[in-house]
């Protein structure tokens, strides 16, 4: 057997215990063999480093960013919101249809039942959305102090409860004229809350974001149709768009560099970004984006 092959077998731990002992005795008595084994040990370590460099270079080619993965997570929220919207739309459609064929007393009974069902559907959708947030919180706080984790979880639950309440407000059929709900040209200022919700949700799903870094000190935004342009150095650090259910409406916020800014939907004029100062809103935002 060639010496090189024997060295390989020794270093790759392929020799029997007896052969290993014999070979180590040989090494001890032969300085040339000892230096050869040391060289081959360095070869294996260097191959390990080369493998690490290759693996790292492979990972660098994978496109990832906080913004993109953030959007993916936000999609879970959007998904839950979409389910709610579709459920609300379906039931409103059914209620509208039933109104035409039943008398008023029957209709009110049907509305009450459907309203309860809708609340249940919304609750399920909210649970899904909350679950997504809780999972994220759990995973991002594995090694962090437990006290902090507990606080976050309880805040999340509180926020979820508030949001459920908001959804409930938006589906208060006693105060809603179903005719207005199904009218496409209904004025937003007077339309019921669930109409606003549906429309803002549709807008967000079509929204695309551009960043204009030509003036890094300029921090402002502008909507052009379904396109949002952010002016400033937003490519230096990750930013996220967050939406928050608030009294039946979905408000849009920008999270950047540990600060939150409110964005007004459809603001056609280039507008300076305004920091969120409302404590309650800030707390809610920190819960969904800890």
């Amino acid at each position, binding site marked *: 057997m060639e010496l*090189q092959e024997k060295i*390989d077998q020794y*270093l*790759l731990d392929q020799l029997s215990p007896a052969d290993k002992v014999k070979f180590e005795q040989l090494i001890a008595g032969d*300085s*040339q063999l*000892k*230096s*050869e084994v*040391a*060289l081959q040990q*360095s*070869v*294996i*370590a*260097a*191959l*390990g*480093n*080369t*493998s*690490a460099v*290759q*693996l*790292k270079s*492979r*990972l*660098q080619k*994978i496109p*990832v*960013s*906080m913004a993109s*993965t*953030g959007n993916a*997570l936000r999609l879970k929220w959007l998904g839950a919101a979409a389910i709610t919207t579709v459920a609300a739309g379906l039931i409103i459609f059914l209620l509208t249809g039933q109104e035409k064929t039943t008398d008023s007393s029957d209709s009110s009974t049907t509305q009450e039942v459907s309203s309860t069902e809708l609340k249940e559907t919304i609750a399920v959708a909210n649970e899904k959305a909350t679950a997504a947030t809780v999972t*994220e919180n759990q*995973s*991002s706080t*594995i*090694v962090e102090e437990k006290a902090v984790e507990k606080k976050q979880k309880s805040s999340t639950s509180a926020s979820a409860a508030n949001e459920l309440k908001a959804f409930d407000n938006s589906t208060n059929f006693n105060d809603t004229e179903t005719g207005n709900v199904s009218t496409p040209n209904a004025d937003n200022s007077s339309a019921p809350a669930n109409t606003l919700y549906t429309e803002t949700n549709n807008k967000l799903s079509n929204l695309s974001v551009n960043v204009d870094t030509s003036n890094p000190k300029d921090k402002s935004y502008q909507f052009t149709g379904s396109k949002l342009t952010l002016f400033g150095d937003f490519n230096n*650090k*990750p930013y996220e768009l967050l939406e928050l259910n608030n009294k039946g409406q979905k408000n849009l916020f920008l999270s950047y560099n540990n600060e939150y800014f409110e964005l007004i939907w459809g603001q056609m004029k280039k507008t300076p970004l305004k920091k969120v100062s409302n404590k309650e809103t800030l707390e809610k935002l920190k819960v969904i984006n800890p």
Partner: protein
Amino acid sequence: MNDQEIIEQIKRGDESAIDFLYKKNYRMMVKLILKNSGTEDEAKDIYQDALVVLWQKAKNPEFVLSSKISTYLYSVCLNLWRKELERKSRHSSSEGMDYGESMPLDEKERISIVQKCISELGDACKQILIYYYYDKLSMAEIAEKMGFANADTAKTKKYKCKQELDKKIKTQYTPSDFLD
């Protein structure tokens, strides 16, 4: 794919398991570094190093996963980032990531000599030698991964590549350079 399946894949030398983990936990690990005064680029670098550590450790037959992979990566990232912050605070120059255990400088130098010679080999040779000496794959496994006809072809290729590497090392350095 559960954690144990991922570890099995890594042990088999399947890099796609690392790709999967990279994407899956990216947000969590980057947030950790961002919260501790790092940038996203620094976070990416640290997280990639943490995955390399997992890749290397998991290949050890004695490696046992005692927590979730995400928890393991989180701890590694945290340690690497602490080291990086210490290094920054000392204002010392960067020597890149040390993928091995801490070792004397002369040994590091020897390895770096060999690494330079490895970098001069062709891609196929580099890969065969990594598969054989570092990943400890069998000739049949190497033949399959490299698309060779059979284990004998892999053995011949590995032999030639190793000869080429030894020649490169020995024309530039004597074996005694590798002795303490």
